[in-house]
């Protein structure tokens, strides 16, 4: 289709720009002018709420907002007049009037868009008085997120991400005018409503209004306790993102430095969630094979993403039978550490503390699910433990950002550390475990194992290109030695909803579906470093697939430590013991 071009003048120079562009896009793409924005989030939140992007257009009296206003033929735009600079400043000052000024102690002190903008625009003092008379209470109800409404500038990014990207609609603007706030239903707090803890709202918040519930103090405390055996596990997506926190190029594989840094923090063992990702593949792969062979419920839907699990429990309780009963890798890791490893090492399981480093905020919620105390139940009879002594399989969850904060606090020069390895045995993993961190990865990892088990042949090609890539939804038909297997992948819950509605109606053409809560999968998780690079997910994904390609073992069932845990402890995949320790149950939350 031929695109019509329009003639416009930007700051006195002539440009030809495509019809339909906004002033913001035209200025950036053709005139190399980055008009400041605050509330705008392309394609997701285009509300014109902040007024920071105003420009002068010849012949109009008001200053139009560049993010919303489309260019028109002959338009003459000035992006930097005195009137524009003054208006931008005033709009930011109005936002600052009600904003707390304790920037020093704010978690976003290093990367706050509001603060950056105020300094870029040369705001030196705020001339407007506060209009709010009281500080609003902080929402502390969620296990994953903390929301401080006083720092909120009502840009609505979070509201729109939650609605349009995740289709959860946990929050909206309540009240009016200067009394409006972002609120849940009845202002009950994020922990008491349908919020799935994904943290996508946090990733787009320009201020410190949304932060994870920090567990750093708890982790420091156990690290300082000589009676505890503190082990850490790191999720696959963390190693390809944590380097960003230390100024390393986007897409750096920082696996070795991360292991070294965590060891320097004082963890007794540095293990790897990739090991339990391999374990998940064994269990889930065999579950898939079992359901195919025995005419079980299909499609099988993956279960490693806790935001998705809460989403299904809340909005689609009818599909829970399709969802794999496998615990997530994080939870499998906690369980095997406190059972298998404890037994092997002769450690008292009560002394073991499992800390996981996750790209995810929902993992903080997941570890507190009441059913996630399997290791305790395993030991309860053997050690005659009382009910009050119950402990979680996973004790603490740090996001990638929190882990980086601890490393900085310890003064560790991350980028220059010599690489180190994970500890054994729970640090050994295959490439299949690594790709869990990217959308499509669980599917590919499961296919590598399922193919070989079903056909008893070795895979001619390990890379399933059809299930890779960052698109929100993908489907493919995989040829398993003559039998077609139809698979689909969704990342972002808005996309997941579409696939799951089909399943609910009994119209799904697929046998296996992978769902990841966050766009891009774990590498785009709500616990990952904040980034301004629009290609960041691509960079992280490339790093994950490089990491996989560089692994000597790339199939879960060939990981020698996995073979050993089955031989010495679990028996067969999906054995009774494996079921007891590594599988779980879900509940209908639709009435909550």
């Amino acid at each position, binding site marked *: 289709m031929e695109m019509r071009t329009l003639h416009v003048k930007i700051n006195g120079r002539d440009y030809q720009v495509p019809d339909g562009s906004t002033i913001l896009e035209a200025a950036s793409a053709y005139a190399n002018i980055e008009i400041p924005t605050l509330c705008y989030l392309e394609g997701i939140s285009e509300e014109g709420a902040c007024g920071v992007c105003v420009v002068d257009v010849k012949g109009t009296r008001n200053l139009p907002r560049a993010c919303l206003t489309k260019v028109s033929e002959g338009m003459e735009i000035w992006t930097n007049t005195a009137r524009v600079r003054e208006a931008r400043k005033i709009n930011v000052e109005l936002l600052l009037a009600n904003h707390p000024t304790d920037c020093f102690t704010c978690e976003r002190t290093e990367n706050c868009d509001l603060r950056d903008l105020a300094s870029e625009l040369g705001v030196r003092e705020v001339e407007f008085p506060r209009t709010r008379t009281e500080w609003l209470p902080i929402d502390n109800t969620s296990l994953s997120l903390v929301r401080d409404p006083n720092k909120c500038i009502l840009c609505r990014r979070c509201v729109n991400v939650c*609605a349009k990207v995740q289709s959860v*609609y*946990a*929050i*909206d*603007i*309540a*009240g*009016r005018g200067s009394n*409006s706030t972002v*609120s*849940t*239903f*009845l*202002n009950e707090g994020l922990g008491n*409503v349908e919020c799935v803890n994904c943290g996508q709202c946090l990733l787009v918040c320009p201020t410190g209004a949304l932060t994870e519930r920090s567990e750093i103090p708890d982790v420091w405390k156990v690290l300082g306790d000589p009676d505890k055996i503190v082990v850490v596990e790191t999720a696959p997506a963390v190693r390809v993102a944590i380097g960003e926190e230390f100024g390393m190029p986007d897409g750096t594989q920082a696996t070795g430095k991360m292991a070294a840094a965590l060891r320097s923090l004082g963890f007794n063992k540095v293990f790897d969630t990739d090991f339990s990702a391999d374990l998940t593949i064994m269990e889930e792969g065999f579950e898939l094979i079992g359901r195919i062979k025995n005419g079980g419920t299909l499609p099988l839907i993956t279960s490693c993403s806790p935001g998705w699990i809460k989403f299904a429990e809340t909005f689609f309780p009818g599909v829970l039978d399709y969802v794999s009963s496998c615990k997530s890798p994080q939870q499998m890791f906690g369980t095997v550490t406190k059972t298998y490893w404890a037994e092997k090492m002769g450690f008292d399981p009560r002394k073991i503390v499992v800390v996981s480093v996750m790209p995810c905020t929902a993992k903080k919620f997941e570890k507190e699910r009441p059913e996630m105390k399997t290791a305790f139940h395993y030991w309860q009879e053997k050690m005659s433990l009382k009910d009050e002594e119950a402990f979680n399989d996973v004790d603490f969850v740090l996001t990638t950002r929190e882990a980086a904060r601890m490393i900085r606090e310890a003064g560790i020069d991350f980028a220059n550390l010599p690489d180190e390895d994970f500890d054994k045995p729970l640090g050994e993993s295959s490439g299949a475990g690594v790709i869990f961190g990217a959308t499509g990865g669980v599917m590919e990892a499961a296919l590598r194992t399922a193919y070989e088990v079903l056909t008893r042949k070795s895979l001619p090609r390990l890379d399933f290109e059809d299930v890779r890539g960052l698109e929100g939804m993908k489907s493919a038909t995989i040829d398993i030695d003559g039998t077609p297997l139809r698979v689909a992948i969704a990342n972002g819950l808005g996309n997941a909803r579409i696939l799951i509605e089909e399943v609910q109606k009994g119209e799904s053409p697929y046998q296996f579906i992978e769902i990841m809560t966050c766009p891009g999968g774990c590498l785009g998780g709500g616990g990952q470093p904040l980034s301004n690079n629009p290609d960041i997910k691509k960079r992280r994904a490339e790093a994950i697939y490089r990491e996989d390609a560089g692994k000597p073992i790339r199939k879960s069932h060939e990981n020698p430590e996995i073979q050993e845990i089955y031989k010495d402890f679990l028996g067969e995949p999906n054995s009774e013991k494996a079921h007891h320790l590594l599988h779980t149950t879900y509940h209908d939350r639709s*009435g*909550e």
Partner: protein
Amino acid sequence: MQINLEERLKENPVLRKQFDELDAYIDEKAGQQGSLINVMHRAQEIFGYLPDEVLAYVSTRLQVPRSTVYGVVTFYHFFSRTPKGRHTISVCLGTACYVRGSNSVYDKVTKSLGIKAGETSPDGRYTLDLVRCVGACGLAPVVVIDKDTYGRMTPDKVVTLLNKYV
């Protein structure tokens, strides 16, 4: 929540009737543009105010997220989430009334009833509202009770006045 409501409807024929009325209206309006606001209006007429369970109920029936329902209800002044008393007292705090001391009238009312603007006294007798100008500035300070307008109000007079509304 849903199950709970079902049970209560069984035991409470008045509530049942109210919900039936609301249902009938929703069936008529569902799918139309702006039906949320219309439905909330009707619900307020039926129930006298908008109880939380009605918000949740409308959300499910109209398939509108409950955070959106809450947003709409808190945005418009004419929606009330607390039951209205038998009498509504509106104290005018418009400029003309304010300069003639309507704030001391307001303070007196809040003290003697123990409620703030937007609230209803525990005995269900009064709801207190603040208004900005009722167009009777010549009579400032003005208090409106139900449909009656009273001018030249003082803290002492207002207390005697209130007692007339049982």
